[in-house]
């Protein structure tokens, strides 16, 4: 749940990057942090294991500035993607206001995407939130690998598997190289702030 301080005119929203392990959630945040470090002027916090995997979460706060007199702050989080960290994922989702689901485009990861989306819906339900109502954006990551001849899931399949019921915005992206990483983030921030707007008036 966003923190809205009407007296101080501050709004803090929490956006979580969710998805299967090795899908590129941390890479999304790292790209944003490296590319815009001088402008966002905050530090990214990341806790990795010895094998370079996200242990608890990554955290990147972003100051958007004043809009309609409110200081808007966005907190971007990732969850650990590995199957065994289910309870950690659920904890990170507490108080979430918007979600980017980073799907892995590799053909061999089709099942993992579907299972991860199901776990997202279940975990949201444990906080009495519906995946059908929360601001959500899909990112189909690793599309750059197509140029290298790596078998990827066609976007139509990804849409059918993941987005046929939800019908939310989706982006083909490459977190490693950058295309649509920023667009994904902008979209989820706009949707999230939009959903909070009614509380600000």
């Amino acid at each position, binding site marked *: 749940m966003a923190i809205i301080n009407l007296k101080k005119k501050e709004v803090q929203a929490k956006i979580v990057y969710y998805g299967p392990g090795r899908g590129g959630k941390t890479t999304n945040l790292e790209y944003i942090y490296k590319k815009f470090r001088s402008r966002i002027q905050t530090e990214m916090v990341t806790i990795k*294991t010895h094998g370079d995997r996200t242990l608890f979460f990554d955290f990147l706060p972003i100051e958007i500035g004043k*809009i*309609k007199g409110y200081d808007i702050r966005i907190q971007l989080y990732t969850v650990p993607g590995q199957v065994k960290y289910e309870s950690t994922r659920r904890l990170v989702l507490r108080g979430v206001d918007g979600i980017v689901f980073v799907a892995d485009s590799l053909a*061999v990861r089709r099942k993992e995407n579907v299972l991860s989306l199901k776990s997202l819906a279940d975990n949201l339900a444990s906080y009495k939130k519906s995946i059908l109502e929360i601001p959500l954006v899909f990112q189909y990551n690793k599309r750059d690998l197509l*140029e*290298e*001849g*790596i078998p990827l899931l066609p976007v139509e399949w990804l849409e059918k598997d993941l987005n046929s019921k939800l019908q939310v915005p989706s982006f083909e992206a490459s977190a490693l190289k950058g295309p649509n990483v920023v667009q994904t983030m902008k979209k989820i921030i706009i949707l999230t702030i939009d959903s909070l707007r009614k509380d600000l008036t």
Partner: protein
Amino acid sequence: MAQQRDEDNFRSQVEDRLDHLFQEDAPDGAEEQVGLVEHPLKNLKAVLLSIDWEITDSTMDSLLNEIKNVEYVYSEDKILLTFLQLLGSIGRYVKANKGRAHPEATRVINSVYEALEKVALTEGMSRPEKEKMLLEEVAKFKKLKEQVVLRKAEKKEPEVVEVSPAPPAPSPEPSPERERIPATGIPAREEPEPEPRAEARFAAPHEAFAYALEEIKDVIRAEFRALRAEIKLWRESK
């Protein structure tokens, strides 16, 4: 009507602010990637990318099969063949130990593959340059082997150590014979990826937090074990 205008105004303010904050420079275009579209390494790369810490027999079998295929293609190139033997060696170790494999193993496997790809795809790379890259990867492989042995000694748990003689360099010969020695004489157990603790699924928030803490503690313990092993190695090398 006024409310709609207000909403539109608010949204456009947010969009303007985000555009200003995250305006991207022109694409660099500097990095030119060599395509793998019809290259013998294409499938190997695809399989490697599919390997996660959620390692299964089928993904590891695909990797080992693909390595064999590429070994056949490069049977006349001793340098590339040695790279592939390194990959095969680590691949078999990871397959045997799965989740209990040393965390460094995937990093080394990726590093060896990256070097292999560079050597295979870079036109005009001299033999000494190729050998230098190979030597670096052989050194990483040897270090990994030491770490595995150390960790095994510390844990005193059965772990299959794939002992394959490090390829001689700078003119390495293929080493087809590999010795597969169970560290304690007991074959490694097939250990499935740990499932999320069942009781945590339905736990109250404070209980879920406790389970999450336990998960973190487990990983921190493993990290410390790996660090201790590395410090020991470092001390011995001094």
